[in-house]
Each structure stands twice: as structure tokens, then as C-alpha cells.
């Protein structure tokens, strides 16, 4: 069974028209893809309450769910608390937040720590060419540049260690800090480093680069990449517990929740695997992008999950699936995809960057239904293209030479 495009037969075409009519009657948004002829309804919204109130990596917790505890989600409509200029000619990446401190770099020559409450700078230090989002854990801030991997004391900005052999890229994987280990995708391997010293604990080489941020849950790290496989590796020594073949490169982050490992492939598929066995539970094919002559996969860029829904961002839409079986629940066609656009979810709300007639906006969606609760338009001082990160009652975005906190 391949997941590549097939021309619709007359029968399939009729079947898809039939299902579209059914959906229309049911009042769902959009049209169901002809490639996913499931007739099931979206199951009841029943999320799992996460414990985390920080946003420690590009997709929040080391499980990359983008989900935080309800107590960390601001209530009511959001307004801007503060805006901190982070001058840059290059761009920003997703801010990370831990212990009431926001960490952000300018992708050029500077790394900063900002007080989450006041917006005042705690420390600033020079750093050449930081690229993906940082990761923070156990008082250590890890930043991958286009040439090296650095660890700093998160409280002071003092250097702890540096690895001159492990580099990364703006579109590449972000590092993950989990327990006393740092995971970095660099070169043609996954590297597990001691958080305190930066020494390699183990390395697992596939021979291919990976742009996919790995997810860590308990004693297993889940990896993917250009290699096309999803792998479960023992965090102790990198031993492979299982691997599952897909049919295309994987650049999207891996997520793990409720015993299900989630990935999205460049063939336009979102797949759910059993975390214990690696068995494929379901797959959902995103509606291809059709032009006059051809059909191209719509590529999953970011995956988040609250334990009930799977939120998949492509460059132009947010698609929501049921975690249990991959049934599509709702779409949002205003999603503003970019190199560092994300998804955050908690307390039944989904925070995303969106398009607006006047430019970019920040939108809060109702997780069960997908309806818009709030849309906040960017302005000359602030845009919402990079992020969000949600932690400690604040929502953080970056863009247009500034970082902003909303609550």
C-alpha cells in the first residue's frame, strides 16, 4: 500500500462527492479529502490536562505537544502586557520560557533573557548565528548555531560548555532538554549529550540529516528525519526499540501523547503510531494542493496535541484530527505558516498566528469546535509571525524586531 496520489476513478469521484454532501449537511468546515473515506464522526472532546506550565522547547514540553496546563493559560480576551525590542536584520525564532524568564535570540549576534513579568532584560550576551529555537531545562539554556552547540547558565548567561562539531539550521530541528540529557539533531545523527558537560552519551546515525525536532517521553526518545523512518530509541544508550517506515522525508516535529507517537511526512500524511510497539494506528492524508496540471502534497510543518485532538499546521491551514483514530474534526484556513510559526494549546483554547487583511494576527480558537474566540491584529510595533509560546499565564510571540507578552 502506498500513500502516493492516485487519479480518482469515476466511482471514487462519486463517493467523494457523496461524502462531501454528508459533511455539508453535518455543518463541518471545508471538504473532506477524497483520500480519507472514513465516515466516523469526530469523537467527544476530552483533553488530557498536562502538568507543565513552562514552554521549555520549540513546542513546549519535551514531548513536543505544544500543550500547557490550564493554570498557565490566560483567561478572557488577550491584551498586550509588554513589548521588548529585539533588533534584528535576520529574524527571530520561537521564544522559550522557564522560571519566569523568556529566552530569545535574534538569529544574528545576540542572545537575551527577559523577565516574564516586567519585560526587563535580565541578561544579554553576544552569540554568532543562533538558528533554531533554544531549549531550557535544569537551569541550562541550550542554543544551536549554524556552527556550534552552546550551553549557558540560564540565570546568568555564563557559558557552561560548547560543542564545535554540532551545528544546526533555521529550518532544522531544535534541541530538546529532557532530564539530564540534551538531544541535538546534527549532521547525519541524533546526539544525546550530558546536560552538565556536553559530552556525548551516545549517538545514533541514520546517514541522513534531520529537520524534525525529537520528542522525549520517559526513557524513550522518538526521532524522525530525511531517513523516512520514525524510531523509538532508549534514552540510556540509543538502542533502537522499534522503527516504522514511512514513504517520505519527515521534517515536522515528532509529538508523543497518551501512548501515541505523531509525525507528519512530506507526502502529506499525518500518522499515529503505538508508542510501545511502533504499530501504525491510523493515517490521515492532508488534502493535496491542486493546480491546473498537478497535485502536490500539502506538507505538515508543525504538530501539537492536547491528548484528544491532533493539531497539524501546514503553510496555509490548521487541520484538526481526532487523536483516537485520525478523523478530521475542523480546519482553519487562515493559519499563517512560516519558518517559525507554531501552535499552543491549553484550557480548551488553541493559539495560532493567522492571516488578516492588514497583515498578521494572533487568533484564539475554541478547541472543540474551531470557532474563533479572539483575533488580535498586529501593528507597526508588533507582529505575531513567530510563536506562540504559552507559559505562566502569558502568551508570547516574536516578530518585527520585538517580543511581546499577552495576557
Amino acid at each position, binding site marked *: 500500500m*502506498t500513500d*502516493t*496520489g492516485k487519479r480518482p476513478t469515476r466511482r471514487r469521484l462519486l463517493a467523494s462527492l457523496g461524502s462531501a454532501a454528508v459533511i455539508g449537511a453535518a455543518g463541518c468546515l471545508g471538504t473532506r479529502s477524497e483520500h480519507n473515506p472514513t465516515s466516523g464522526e469526530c469523537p467527544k472532546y476530552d483533553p488530557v490536562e498536562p502538568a507543565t506550565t513552562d514552554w521549555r522547547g520549540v513546542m513546549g514540553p519535551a514531548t513536543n505537544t505544544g500543550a500547557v496546563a490550564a493554570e498557565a493559560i490566560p483567561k478572557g480576551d488577550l491584551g498586550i502586557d509588554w513589548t521588548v525590542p529585539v533588533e534584528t536584520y535576520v529574524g527571530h525564532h520561537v521564544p522559550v520560557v522557564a522560571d519566569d524568564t523568556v529566552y530569545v535570540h535574534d538569529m544574528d549576534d545576540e542572545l537575551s533573557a527577559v523577565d516574564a513579568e516586567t519585560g526587563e532584560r535580565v541578561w544579554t550576551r553576544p552569540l554568532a548565528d543562533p538558528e533554531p529555537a533554544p531549549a531550557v531545562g535544569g537551569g541550562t539554556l541550550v542554543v544551536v548555531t549554524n556552527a556550534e552547540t552552546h550551553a549557558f547558565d540560564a540565570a546568568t548567561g555564563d557559558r557552561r560548555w560548547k560543542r564545535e562539531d554540532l551545528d544546526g*539550521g533555521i529550518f532544522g530541528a531544535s534541541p530538546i532538554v529532557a532530564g539530564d540529557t540534551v538531544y541535538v539533531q546534527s*549532521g*547525519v545523527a541524533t546526539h544525546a549529550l550530558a546536560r552538565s558537560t556536553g559530552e556525548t552519551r551516545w549517538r545514533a*546515525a*541514520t*546517514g*541522513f*540529516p534531520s529537520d524534525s525536532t525529537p520528542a522525549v517521553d520517559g526513557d524513550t526518545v522518538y526521532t524522525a*528525519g*530525511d*531517513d*523516512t523512518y520514525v524510531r523509538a530509541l532508549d534514552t540510556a544508550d540509543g538502542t533502537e526499540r522499534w522503527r516504522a*517506515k*514511512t*514513504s*517520505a*522525508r519527515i521534517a515536522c516535529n515528532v509529538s508523543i501523547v497518551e501512548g501515541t507517537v505523531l509525525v507528519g511526512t512530506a*507526502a502529506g500524511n499525518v500518522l499515529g503510531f503505538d508508542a510501545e510497539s511502533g504499530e501504525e494506528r491510523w493515517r490521515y492524508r492532508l488534502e493535496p494542493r491542486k493546480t491546473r496540471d*498537478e497535485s502536490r502534497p500539502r506538507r505538515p510543518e508543525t504538530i501539537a496535541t492536547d491528548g484528544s485532538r491532533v493539531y497539524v499546521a501546514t503553510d496555509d491551514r490548521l487541520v484538526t484530527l481526532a487523536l483516537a483514530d485520525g478523523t478530521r474534526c475542523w480546519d482553519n484556513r487562515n493559519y499563517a505558516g512560516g519558518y517559525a510559526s507554531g501552535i499552543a494549546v491549553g484550557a480548551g483554547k488553541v493559539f495560532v498566528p493567522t492571516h488578516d487583511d492588514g497583515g498578521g494576527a494572533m487568533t484564539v480558537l475554541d478547541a472543540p469546535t474551531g470557532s474563533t474566540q479572539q483575533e488580535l491584529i498586529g501593528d507597526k510595533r508588533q507582529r505575531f509571525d513567530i510563536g506562540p509560546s504559552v507559559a505562566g499565564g502569558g502568551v508570547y510571540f516574536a516578530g518585527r524586531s520585538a517580543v511581546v507578552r499577552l495576557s
Partner: protein
Amino acid sequence: MLSRREVLAAGGAALAGGLAGCGSSPPTPDATFDAPTTAWPTAGYDPQATGHAPAGPTEGTVSWSVSRSSADPPLYGALSPPVVADGTVYVAGLATHYYRPDDFVSPLAAIDAASGSLQWVEGFADGLGGSPAVAGDGSGTVVIGGYDGTLHAVGSDGSSEWTADLGGRLGTPMAYGDRLYVESGSGRLHAVGSDGSRLWAADRPGPTELLVGPDEPVETTMPVADDRGVYAAFTPFEREREAVVVLGYDHGGGRRWRTVLDGRYGRSPNGLAVTDDVLYATVGGTVYALDPDTGEQRWQFVTGSAVAGPPTVDDERVYVGGKNLYALSRSEGVEQWRVVNEAPPSYDRDPTALPYLARPPVADGRVYIRTGAVSAADGTRLWGGDADEWLRSGNYFAEPYYRRPVASPVVTGDAMYLTHAHHGVVKVA
């Protein structure tokens, strides 16, 4: 634009093909291949291009090498993998877009397998388009295809025996009994007798041919053959992005089937190999298993690279060199093991910087890559390594070698012979 004559010629060929297809059963040439242990006579070893020889060396160090500059004309161009027969190693320097056929003299060299002494080098002013093949009729004749559409037959002393003007840019010929099969750069498959007589030619199918002309160049690969017929592949440039067409013919030129492969990551036909029950095809960086009787797809294995090399196959597994070297189960295409190629991604994150790519010969439970070998059963390294000092020396630029291996080995019972992008022709024994 297509001329009136070409349209008529195309129509005539199609008519002839139709007649061959529905008339009496096509001729089956006698093609006993006696699996030599002292020769590697064509690029794929046997007509099926299994790359599976009965014997190969168990260890080795460099025995001799012939540098690229030591010959006249020099061994420039993209060096073909060697073929070996009658104690002689033959290597061609192919024209590429770096060695343009309009001002490059392609060498064909004969080297004494025992001593490494250069026996002769012939220059081909119009450029060569594929690897040499030793004719299957026992004559020792070496056949090679020119960029100008001429198939050249050369005696073991380097003298010209015959030429056949087939047209198009010719690729690597394959010897099947007393005939040769070769595909032209227009996607036309030619059957030629060992004496240079033209037996038949089959045009590539499709309506687009009538629009762009039958000689519009396409990408092709060496045909393979078994007693059922001959198999060919080409990329139709005009449409169906990321598609390669694979064709099954009988030995009379009648088409048995046609299959289109979508080829995720790369759309070049990079090699075929056929066994009793499966036709394996590398398209871009993906390996496909097809039913040789119908062309129906059995499985595919996406390596993730945009390019992988020709497959080889033994009784248990299929072997293919992409970025890494893979062993796949024959029945389902499930990866059994891989040899990780540690070459770093280049600055533009192209993982094919220094991939393996070469057709990996398999013999006696060993798979040969670059200058060494691994166990066919589990991929463990038996000897040699990518870190060998001499293999790494040289000024590598990935770009000129894109889609070409750095080192391409073949084996006989007691030695490996390989061409190397910098070191020329090398014997390891």
C-alpha cells in the same frame, strides 16, 4: 518539429511492433550464461544484471593502480565501472556535461588484469555514453555506445571490428547470447547482432513522441534481459513529473507491458535487475519490485535520497547503494540492515554529498562497496572502510560526482577492480 519522414518511420515501427506482438511467438535467442569466476563481462555481470557472481575476494589491499593521467589519451571523463574478461580490464571515460562530447575525446582503455600494465587506449572523438560490454558470443569483442549514436565493436587488440549507426545518444549495452541490447538517449531500444546487424528497434511509447520527435533526449538506463524478454526504462521529460516508464518486451521487440513509477525523490531511471520472480528498478532514490510478467508493482522502498544506484540481488536480499548501503528483503522490501554512510550533509543540506551509489557486487555472502566488503547476512564490515586514507585523499567536489559514485567496484574470484574518481583504475586483491 517532426518531419514527414520521421512520422512515417514512427508509424512503420509501431506497425512492425504490432505484427510481431500478435503473430508467431518471437524468437528466443540462445543465451546461456556460464557464470564465470574470472570475468565480469557486462556492467551488471549477467544479462539479468543481478550483480551476483559465484565468487569474490575475501580480503585485499591495493595491488596496482592506473592513474587517470598516465594514458594517452588520458582517462578523463566520468569513468565507467570496469568490465573484466580474458585477463583484461576495460574502462571507458564517458562524456558528461563537464566533459562535453563536442570537444572531448572519450578514452576506452584495456589494462592487463594481472600486472596493471596499460595494453591500449582508443580515443572516441564524439564521446562515449555508457560502460563497455564484452559480447556474449565468446569472441572477446568489446562493445561500447557513442554519444553520436554509433555502437562501436572493438577487438581485444583495440582494432575496430564493426560499427552500427543506431542514432541517439547510446547508453550501456547489455550482451544477451549472440545479441546486444542497448537503449538510446531517445528511449529507443535496439537489438543488434554480434556482427553489428540491426535486428529490431522499439520506439518509446506515448503520444508525446509525435509532438517532440523521437530523438528528443530522455534519461535511460541499461536494459536487462531474461528468457521472457528484455526490460527497459526511461524518463519521459515532457509530462508526468516524477515519473519513470518501465517497459517489458519480448525478444522480438513486441511490448508485453508498460508501467509508470512515480519515483518520490528523483525521477531518473538508475538501474534494473531481474530474477525469476521479480524485476527490481531503482528510480531516483526509490527501489521498486515489479512483476516481470505484468509490470505490476509489488513493493517500494523510499531511501529518502534523490538518487540511489542500480540494485543487485542474491537468493536472499536486494542490495542498493544510495546515501547508505541497504539490504532489503526480496519478498517485501523490508530493510534488513544498512551500512551508514557518515558523509556529512553539504551546506545546502543535500545528503547526497558523497553517497555510495555504485552497483554493489555480491558474491559468496559478501557485498562489496568502495574498496572493501561487508557481510551480506548482516552488513558487518569484513574489510576496508570509508575512512581508508587513500580513498579519502583527493580533492572532492560533490557537484561533478552528483549521481556518480566516487568508487565503483566489480569482482572476480580473487580480486576487486574499481574505478575511482581521482585514482583512476585500481585492483584490490
